[in-house]
């Protein structure tokens, strides 16, 4: 197991280098260098520009620029955001946490709902319930995140049941601990629903399909023949096997989750990484664009790593060496 983990980590290294390479060269394609846009900004002093130029070696040949930039990144120096007047890393750090919270809560929402629905769908195959579930799953798949977010915002405004965007109330600081927790959950509900429904369709269908395959298996017939109750047969024997392959799906769902989170954040004023990225693009803050891009990719790679390790841990049939 340990060897597998180590090898899996080693596999990540070329990928990480490739990602840094692509990010760097995408931004190099932009006209001018990182600071051209900022040099036009009267609020940024010429010394500051010269200082940054030297720090990132912008007068050096391009391959040296890349190496200097890589070295800086390894020291968690992602450059300076002129729009926010803060180091890029400081900015990203706070936003990354918010995106993580939102993605996590959406993922929990998706899994907690999808698995039981998938089981129900499989056990009652071809019933009206099965059809209803797949219709809803389809609708969730097809509705664009940003449009769904707008619809829910409209509903929130008309009914007043939910906050219209944001992450916590204005009086958050004055709330008690319990009040604070509730406040955070209250503000998480709508973005979670938006983000969570998108991934449900695939998961429900996969769960249903897997379980249907296993329900025909010999060991299920054996279990029934032993006289076990239907509940035990399904939950203990069939479901446990059918859940395993879903963990790979967890890795597949991540890019969609992160991208979807970005749009949801933007519409629902959730201060996350995606929103930061958009602001950076609109303000042509290239260091920030690049930093967010790399962080997004890093998040994805780590997510895939977790998925792989989880699969190796759950499924004993996977060989580690």
């Amino acid at each position: 197991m340990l060897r597998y983990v180590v090898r899996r980590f080693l596999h990540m290294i070329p990928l990480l280098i490739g990602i840094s390479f692509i990010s760097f060269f995408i931004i190099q394609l932009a006209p001018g260098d990182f600071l051209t846009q900022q040099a036009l900004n009267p609020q940024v002093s010429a010394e500051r520009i010269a200082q940054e130029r030297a720090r990132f070696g912008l007068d050096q040949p391009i391959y040296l620029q890349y190496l200097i930039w890589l070295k800086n990144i390894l020291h968690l120096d992602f450059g300076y955001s002129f729009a926010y007047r803060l180091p890029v890393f400081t900015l990203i750090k706070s936003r990354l946490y918010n995106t993580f919270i939102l993605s996590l809560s959406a993922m929990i929402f998706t899994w907690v709902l999808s698995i039981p629905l998938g089981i129900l769908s499989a056990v009652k195959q071809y019933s009206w319930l099965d059809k209803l579930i797949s219709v809803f799953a389809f609708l969730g798949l097809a509705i664009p995140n940003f449009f769904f977010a707008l619809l829910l915002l409209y509903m929130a405004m008309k009914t007043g049941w939910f906050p219209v965007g944001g992450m916590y109330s204005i009086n958050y600081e004055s709330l008690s601990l319990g009040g604070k927790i509730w406040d955070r959950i209250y503000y998480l509900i709508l973005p979670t629903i938006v983000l969570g429904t998108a991934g449900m369709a695939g998961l429900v269908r996969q769960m249903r399909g897997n379980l249907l395959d296993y329900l025909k298996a010999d060991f299920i017939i054996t279990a029934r023949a032993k006289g076990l109750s239907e509940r035990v047969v399904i939950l203990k024997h069939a479901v446990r096997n059918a859940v395993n392959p879903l963990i790979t799906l967890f890795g597949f769902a991540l890019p969609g989750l992160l991208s979807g989170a970005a749009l949801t954040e933007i519409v629902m004023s959730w201060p996350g990484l995606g929103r930061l990225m958009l602001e950076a693009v609109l303000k042509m803050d290239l260091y920030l664009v690049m930093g967010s891009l790399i962080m997004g990719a890093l998040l994805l790679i780590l997510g895939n790593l977790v998925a792989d390790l989880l699969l190796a841990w759950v499924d004993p049939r996977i060989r580690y060496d």
Partner: protein
Amino acid sequence: MTKKGARTEDTTFSELRSVTKTQLIWRAFKRHQLGIIGGIILILLYGFAFFAEFIAPYSSDLQVRGKAFHPPTRLHFFDEEGNFILQPFVYHYELVDRVFKVYRPDRTIKYPLRFFVRGEKYKFLGLIPSDIHLFGTKAPGHIFLLGTDKFGRDIFTRLLFGARISLSVGLVGILVSFSMGALIGGIAGYYGGVVDNLLMRVAEMIMAFPGFYLLLALRALLPTALPSTTVYLLIVFILSFIGWPGFARVIRGMFLSLREQEFSLAAKALGSTDLRIILRHILPNTMSFIIVAATLSVPAYILGESALSFLGLGIQEPQASWGNMLAAAMNTRVLASFPWILVPGFFIFITILAFNFLGDALRDALEPRMRTSRQTFTG
């Protein structure tokens, strides 16, 4: 992969019962009611987009003075006494609150709905000059089936013109990225070795980015304000750049296995060139997969365009796209008072749903064993 085993020679044995492959596929497809519904919806939507100038009562950038945020005009089939009339009419709407844009129908002024009316001049598809519109009312009456936006432009009209952009991006994007994917995946799979390794590592690296982040970063390279045609091509290019790797990987896998099949080896032994083997023997065998995967991927491109335009990074005003029509809804006050501006979102939703239904039906008909992984840029 389905092999074309049974050829027409067999039909002499059972002339009456023989069915061609196309018939089999059509039979399987017909069993999917949802797929057929999806197909019909798509034909209607693309048809509406094609005939936009004729179906729309106005031109896409006509701003009617004093009619900003006009609510959808109701068609009335019954007059005040409750009698049914064959020719529906609309009431004149009076602006009662200039600040909050509140309108009230004035029941004393009626305009009957008329078909094939003469209105604004236009050139159908930029070629055929005409001034006949499918429907309209006599001036000074207006008919806004889905209301107007903040400039007093008819949303129904803009929806039709926006459909041209939003719906075509999907098809053009798929065409570009699938050509790229098939070419690159094909080269990697057919030649293998170092080329394969290199190309696939590049594909993996592009796939390691969350699509939407890469989309934004690539868009950041160029200024926001560009001519519409340039932006359109730019969007297609960016979406294709993000979209090709996933597809190339599958094609590569298929090429890898197909080139080892007997028919490829036989062709090689007969002295066929690589190009001929690829075009005549391998590519046709990937066709059904390509059709299904393309149908299921179109929504991602439509979503990508509408999301970019929604954020103000795509198609710019005054050109209409389903995405930029929704941008006004970002203002919560506007959204709360004038919910009809959300209509384009419903159309994006319906289009995506229709493509999914159609794609699922096609998959069951063409590639029953295929497990699809849908690619998304925006989730």
